[in-house]
């Protein structure tokens, strides 16, 4: 299957685990647009979690330039990195996605992945990014997906939709976790995916 065909087949209502797993296993640097220094905002604790799991995190928020988030200096915009970035994680409402994606498309080299946070979805912006070969994830949280695929999130009673008969290494602080468990297809949470699809079709 060509890359082009693969892109056309991407179903943004229900991602195969291998798609998400491939992204989280391959990206190293993540710029988080809309990162907040307020420690009860989801962007703050997603940023902190991903940093603890070894990702090279960059907070992007023009309102906080001059300050740091967990030791990383805030930058004003995507063009201010001065180095290539693997993934852009957008913590903005759906209505603010397009300008961020347009700015991302001016970067050289292009990012490999554009990820829109839980609750955020802009299909037109996604199509634009995919047309130049960027992988897109919408309406998902990378912290939740990392926790799910590693089964760390199972400690909260969440259905990880993965199985493993392997003995995992004893956990230490800040370690990377294996995401390569046997996936059970996402099919067993199809009801939730269907509900999300119905909602996106109505809106």
């Amino acid at each position: 299957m060509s890359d082009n065909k693969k892109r056309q087949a991407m179903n943004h209502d229900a991602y195969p685990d291998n798609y998400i797993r491939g992204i989280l296993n391959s990206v190293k640097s993540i710029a988080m647009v809309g990162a907040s220094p307020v420690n009860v905002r989801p962007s703050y604790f997603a940023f902190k979690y991903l940093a603890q799991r070894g990702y090279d995190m960059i907070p992007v928020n023009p309102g906080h330039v001059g300050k740091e988030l967990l030791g990383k200096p805030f930058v004003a915009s995507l063009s201010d990195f001065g180095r290539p970035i693997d993934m852009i994680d957008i913590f903005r409402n759906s209505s603010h996605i397009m300008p961020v994606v347009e700015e991302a498309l001016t970067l050289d080299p292009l990012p490999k992945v554009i990820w829109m946070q839980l609750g955020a979805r802009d299909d037109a912006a996604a199509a634009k990014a995919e047309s130049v070969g960027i992988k897109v994830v919408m309406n998902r949280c990378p912290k939740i997906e990392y926790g799910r695929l590693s089964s760390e999130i199972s400690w909260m009673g969440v259905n990880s939709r993965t199985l493993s008969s392997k003995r995992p290494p004893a956990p230490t602080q800040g370690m990377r976790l294996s995401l390569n468990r046997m996936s059970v297809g996402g099919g067993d949470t199809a009801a939730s995916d269907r509900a999300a699809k119905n909602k996106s079709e109505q809106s």
Partner: protein
Amino acid sequence: MSDRLPGFSTLAVHAGAQPDPTTGARATPIYQTTSFVFNDADHAASLFGLQAFGNIYTRIGNPTNAVLEERVAALEGGTAALAVASGHAAQVVVLQQLLQPGDEFIAARKLYGGSINQFTHAFKSFGWNVVWADPDDISSFERAVTPRTKAIFIESIANPAGSITDIEAISTVARKAGVPLIVDNTLASPYLIRPIDHGADIVVHSLTKFLGGHGNSLGGIIVDAGTFDWSTGGKYPMLSEPRPEYHGIRLQETFGNFAFAIACRVLGLRDLGPALSPFNAFMILTGIETLPLRMQKHCDNAKAVAEFLAGHPAVASVNYAGLPSDKYHQLARKYAPRGAGAVFTFSLKGGYDAGVNLVSKLQLFSHLANVGDTRSLVIHPASTTHSQLDDAAKIKSGAGPDVVRLSVGIEDKEDLIADLEQALAA
């Protein structure tokens, strides 16, 4: 690595469990501890603020209970689950997230007698008002909807008569009303019916019954289907509004399609306190590993017993949806093709006295107030589980004075039939 969906029996054995990282133990360990040590002050603050995954205190979560939660979520096809101390506790915790004082919920009139009591009396003091509807008349649910309606509650296979509820038809009413459909799936277990596949938004269980299956441990569970949008219209403020006890976190925004299960844990279980013992979680988990085998045997035995009773001269009628002549047989074929469950009622020509006589003569069936045990059980609902209802309500809920309820176990069916035969002849 391809994504494929394993079968039900594989999930029943494996979902949620993995070898213990510290010891390599293959069976799920019983983490019989109240509390868990933090790495440092920052880790503690992250856990308390719902910012990190991990354990704090067994009233909020426990690693043994978490395996049970993930396993039942996987079997039901939900996004997450929360285990609690009993089926009754599950119902309190669910409705606490959905109702404010003065709100209403619609419930099917055919329910476990304990639920009818809980809804009618205990919940009244919380200002949660139950409105009854008839599961055999879908339009009665439509008529019961008001602007204060916050949820609809039904049983998939209804106690005591084993009648089958048309889940899809009632889910259509719930969707139109903009409220979640809660299905108590205790008597079916996910092996027979998966209510989420038919439009349920929340599934609750008494784990005490078929899931645990051995009559040795109480437990309850809440499964979040991940299908309901809690953000619309400010109707569900526990999910959609900033929570003062968590520094202004909005649960739906933060946890997405498993926010309801998190609300039940961090607002319900944490503050109301009906935690499940990790020991009970272990016993129930062990039971679930054989659920598919047991449930099929329960159903096969129940059908044989029902057929025997239907042909017996002392029996006036048998209510078992697995019999082709039964009123609910078509619904059973649609919703529970593997079997119509193992709890059903029959009535005796000799009325109340004959019922009391039968119960006293049985040698294998145990006379007690439970269902879903490996052992066969018998009870006379009018004088026990449904005794607090008035006579009209008893008949409406299928527990009239001449009715005997059986929960058919996994013994040899020939022995069960012989026991009934001698007791009916006596």
